[in-house]
């Protein structure tokens, strides 16, 4: 593994990454020959049908799964070292808030674990809750909040310790369309304000196109990258940008990429 500083401004570099799960039904090739680079400040979406390895790839970056081949560096070090350095915040599909903790104490959980002082904890919890527009809900318990608010709290929790990288695994997948639009808009504003590098897994084409600077299209069996699309949209994106020809053109290309992946599968 390289330990030198990343070349240029690349934050995550995967080189011919492979991951095979050994299951009772034989090996499952979750990732095959995945190579990509994510630069600092990028908003990269991973899109593809279920089983294409997009969540697995995110989990490998987070050191929640171990690759069986290839090389991967995060901030120039191994994923394990990056995890120990607390280099990233992870947002799961479900909010995964601890039900016995108030919202403020949930957001403060990583800070407690990482040994921040009480004063610092309070200050950071207040700041990150403000960032996701949850000020005033500090003392509520998770069940008292709607699904969208719970997911915002879980984003605040991932932001609380100021990691440079945010890994998000279909964070809005379980929410309805209207809430999702709203949160997408807020996420973009947050990204603009904090200058984080975001890796975002989704299965929604409009969501991927609306949010991303780059879109990684993946296909299943074996999970692999079929296309990487650079977005030509400006960084400033109002919601109605989704009706512009540029937007529709990128969406079209993503759709084509997904279809190509599927036809490959049918040919097998």
């Amino acid at each position, binding site marked *: 593994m390289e330990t030198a500083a990343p070349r240029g401004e690349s934050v995550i570099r995967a080189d011919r990454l492979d991951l095979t799960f050994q299951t009772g039904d034989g090996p499952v090739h979750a990732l095959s020959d995945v190579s990509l680079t994510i630069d600092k400040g990028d908003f990269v979406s991973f899109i593809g049908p279920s089983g294409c390895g997009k969540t697995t790839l995110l989990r490998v970056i987070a050191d929640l799964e171990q690759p069986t081949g290839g090389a991967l560096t995060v901030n120039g070090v191994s994923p394990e070292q990056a995890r120990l350095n607390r280099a990233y915040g992870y947002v799961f599909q479900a909010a*995964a808030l*601890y039900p016995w903790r108030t919202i403020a104490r949930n957001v403060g959980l990583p800070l407690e674990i990482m040994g921040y002082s009480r004063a610092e904890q309070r200050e950071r919890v207040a700041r990150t809750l403000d960032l996701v527009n949850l000020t005033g809900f500090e003392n509520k318990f998770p069940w008292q909040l709607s699904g969208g608010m719970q997911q915002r709290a879980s984003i605040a929790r991932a932001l609380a310790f100021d990691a440079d990288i945010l890994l998000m695994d279909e964070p809005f997948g379980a929410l309805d369309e209207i809430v999702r639009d709203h949160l997408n808009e807020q996420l973009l504003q947050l990204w603009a304000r904090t200058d984080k590098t975001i890796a975002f897994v989704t299965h929604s084409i409009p969501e991927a196109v609306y949010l991303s600077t780059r879109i990684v299209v993946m296909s299943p069996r074996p999970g692999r990258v079929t296309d990487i699309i650079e977005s030509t949209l400006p960084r400033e994106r109002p919601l109605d940008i989704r009706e512009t020809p540029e937007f529709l053109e990128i969406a079209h290309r993503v759709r084509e990429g997904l279809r190509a992946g599927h036809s490959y599968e049918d040919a097998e």
Partner: protein
Amino acid sequence: MTAGAATGGGKAIPILVVVVAIVGIWYAATIWLNTPWQRDVYQREGRDWTVSDLVADTMAQERPVLPAPHQVAIEIWQTTVEKKVTSKRSLVYHAWITLSATLAGFAMGTVLGVVLAVAIVHNRATDRSVMPWVIASQTIPILAIAPMIIVVLNAVGLSGLLPKALISTYLSFFPVVVGMVKGLRAPEAIQRDLMRTYSATAAQVFWKLRWPHSMPYLFASMKVAVAISLVGAIVGELPTGAVSGLGARLLAGSYYGQTVQIWSALLTAAALAAVLVSLVGVANSYVLRRMGARP
């Protein structure tokens, strides 16, 4: 999660109906079971009797097969309210002897159960080596092992409360181990993954995730544990020729055919168990409410 607070007004009537039914059946059984003896008495004395005589007399025997509820109630009243608490004939005194052993055994059993569960959850070797013994320990009938424990401990100079408490411990640690192993393993993969992304230590995962997550399991186990702790303490009093405690009252009652005394000790034990279980229930709902459970 508020099952502990069974005090809703709507529940009073069904409970009352059941109580009335039980008392009714009890009276009927009293008459039926005590009739043969009463007839013998009439025959021996050669006197005439009517049905109403029979009914009244079956409920007023000194050593009935089954005492009537009011006989037991009077006995309980006389041995609790009308006796000094320090008297050897006071049921309160005997109940306290048993209760103290119960509480000591319950506390030790809960601590032992939690400690074993923590070891089992965190160490694969402990899981494989200890868990089978934990289960095997409960296949031995407590009535068989209780005298051994009392005798062995007596030989090394331990008597009184501790041997009885140890029998309670022996019974009560088991539901706590089983419940807490389940509870400490209950956090979902996503909640454990979250801790891993923070590079949390095993101790942090325990105190911030596993322990709070297992609270409902702990209280459910403790409800079972406290009830069998009481059984353990009573069983522990039986083989010792003990002079005090509810177990001793039961034994003395059976030696002398004092069925009224047996039943009053039995009912006291049952009431004690009900109080202990509901106290755990109250603690349960208090703690869970503090932990933000839905009211």
